[in-house]
Structures are given as structure tokens and as C-alpha cells.
């Protein structure tokens, strides 16, 4: 019996240690996972990060040499190219409706 109790205590101690180790490991893995999530996942998973990380505060990123604002639709505009859709544009587009047929071009 004493041996069994001792065994249980030992086992319990190991369990505690294992859990602590696990938590520490999980913490590290979590941090690594978070770091990976930023670079490895999502639509931007194929994005090279070295260029952006190598930037100096004063340099423009590659492909940008000057500010692109204000917009031609005004400095406060939030609608962008949808501003093209004027009543005249709608009437002009409607001239292309000849068959009256509608195609769903979105995925299910």
C-alpha cells in the first residue's frame, strides 16, 4: 500500500510537471503560431515579407513613388469608381439588354 501511495504521489508529481511543461510549450507554440499566422496564412500567405520588413521609415514601398490622394472624386470620397454609375451610365448600359436573360455569375 505505501508503495502504491508513493507511486500515486510520484505519478501526480509527474503529471503536474508534465502539465507545466505542456503549458510552457503551448505558450511558445502559441506565440510561434501567432507569428506564423501573420505571414503564412490567409489570402496573403504568398506575400513576401522581407521587402516590407527591410523598409526604412522614410522610404516609399516598391511600386509607390508619390501619394495617390486626393481622389479625382474629391478628397473626402469613399465611393471610388462606383461614382461612375450615373443615371446616364445606367441608361447607356440598359441598351445592352436585348434578350432579357439573367445569368447568375456568383458561386454557390
Amino acid at each position, binding site marked *: 500500500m505505501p508503495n502504491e501511495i508513493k507511486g500515486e504521489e510520484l505519478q501526480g508529481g509527474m503529471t503536474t510537471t508534465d502539465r507545466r511543461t505542456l503549458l510552457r510549450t503551448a505558450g511558445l507554440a502559441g506565440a510561434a503560431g501567432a507569428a506564423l*499566422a501573420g505571414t503564412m496564412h*490567409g489570402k496573403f500567405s504568398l506575400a513576401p515579407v522581407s521587402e516590407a520588413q527591410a523598409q526604412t521609415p522614410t522610404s*516609399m514601398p516598391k*511600386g509607390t513613388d508619390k501619394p495617390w490622394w*486626393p481622389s479625382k472624386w474629391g478628397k473626402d*470620397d469613399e465611393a471610388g*469608381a462606383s461614382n461612375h454609375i450615373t443615371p446616364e*451610365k445606367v441608361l447607356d*448600359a440598359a441598351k445592352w439588354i436585348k434578350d432579357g436573360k439573367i445569368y447568375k455569375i*456568383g458561386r454557390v
Partner: protein
Amino acid sequence: MPLFGPRAFTLRIPGGPTGGPFGDNKLVYHDEFLSTEIGQTGTQFDGLGHIGIQLGKDGDKSEMRFYNGHTAAEISDAYGLKKLGVEKLKPLFTRAHLVDMVALKGGMMDAGQEITSADIKAALAKQNMSESDIKPGDAIMFHTGWGSLWMKNNDRFNSGEPGIGLDAARWVIEKDLALTAADTWAVEVVPNPDKSLAFVVHAELQTKHGIHNHENLIFDELIADKKYQFVYCFAPAPIKGATGSNGCPIAIT
């Protein structure tokens, strides 16, 4: 459906039916619960708050610039974008020109294969369409064949894609178009032929020129009917502060 990295699309309808019966008429009903990046999964329309460019130091939100120079400091908010939300856009109803790259190239294009402005001109000529008929505010759409991988080989579909590069983007900007679209998840070529660039066409068209982008469309029926010119109609879901929109765009002939 193909999703990117940790993006999720989870639909649940509890109950079966969810509720009822109500009243002496014994009405029963279904409700769905949806958990997803609602504007960035499946057929998706990119709003102007989706893509920006960092001009300053890492973490400096006052120099993370979006369309019209709006900054992350101004617009970012955990409860929805404070500016450039997709609800600010006007509904789109415009002429669309469909470019059949499969017909031009003789088969499905491959990942990393770029559609150039020369390709667009060649495809238009092959389809007996005049480049001069493309007017400001029109939409241009690309059938690359890559969409045929949808739900057939999602891993390959997600691994990259054919699409437009900066050359074609400049053509779109010169034509002053309202929208680009394709049967792919980004419309632009991935990876870019210049391996140091990431989604640079997104930034060029959307961020710098406010030109919209519709991803994961399907043109099979239009192609079968040889309908390359039609009216494109889409109103983004009016979700305040959303980065994009799901929904079903339609083509009308």
C-alpha cells in the same frame, strides 16, 4: 468551398425547424447562424477599406494609407471600419466585357501566368470586339479556366492563380474602368512574376485608383452562349463598416 488559411465559413441551422409552431395556424420556421469573414469568402467583392499600403514605420497607423489617403488610424475599428465601409459604395449597374482567355490560350491558364494588355487586345479581336467600345465606368472580366478547379482541386486552386499583372492594370486605369473581375480568388496573377511584389495589382487598382474587384465569379454559361458583352449588376451587402461583400452578381443580356 476553397478558403484561404484560417478563414472560416460555418453555417448552422439549429432546431430543425428552429422554432414554432406559432399561432393556431401552426407556423414553423428555419433560421441560420453564419460565422465567416462575410466579405472575403466565396464569391467576394472587395470594398475600398480592404487593401492599404504601409508608407511609414511598422505599426504606424497614421501612415498606413488606403483609398483616397484615408489612414488606418482614421478608419480601423474592431466594430467595423469607420470610413470606406462597403456600404458607402453606389450599386453597380454597368456594361461588362468578358475576355475569354481559355479560348485565346487554347486551355486553362496556369498559376503565375500573367494576362497582359496585349492578351486583352488579342482576345477582344478574337471575339470580334472593339477595344474602342470599352468606355469609362465599364467592367472588364477574365475567364481563365482556373475556376474549373473549384471544389475539384481546392489545394491547387488556392496555391496560386493566373491573372492580370501591372501591365494590364495600367490598361484598366487608362480605360478608366469601374471594376475588374475573374474566375479566380484574387483576379491578379499569383505569384507575381516579380517575386518581391505581393498583391500589387490590388493596391494599384483598389487603393490608388478606387477601382473595384470581384473575385470567384463563374462565366461558364455566358461562355457557352457566346455572350461576351452584358450588363453587370451588383449591390454590395449594406453591412456598415464591412471590408467587402458576399452576394450573387448577375449578368443581364
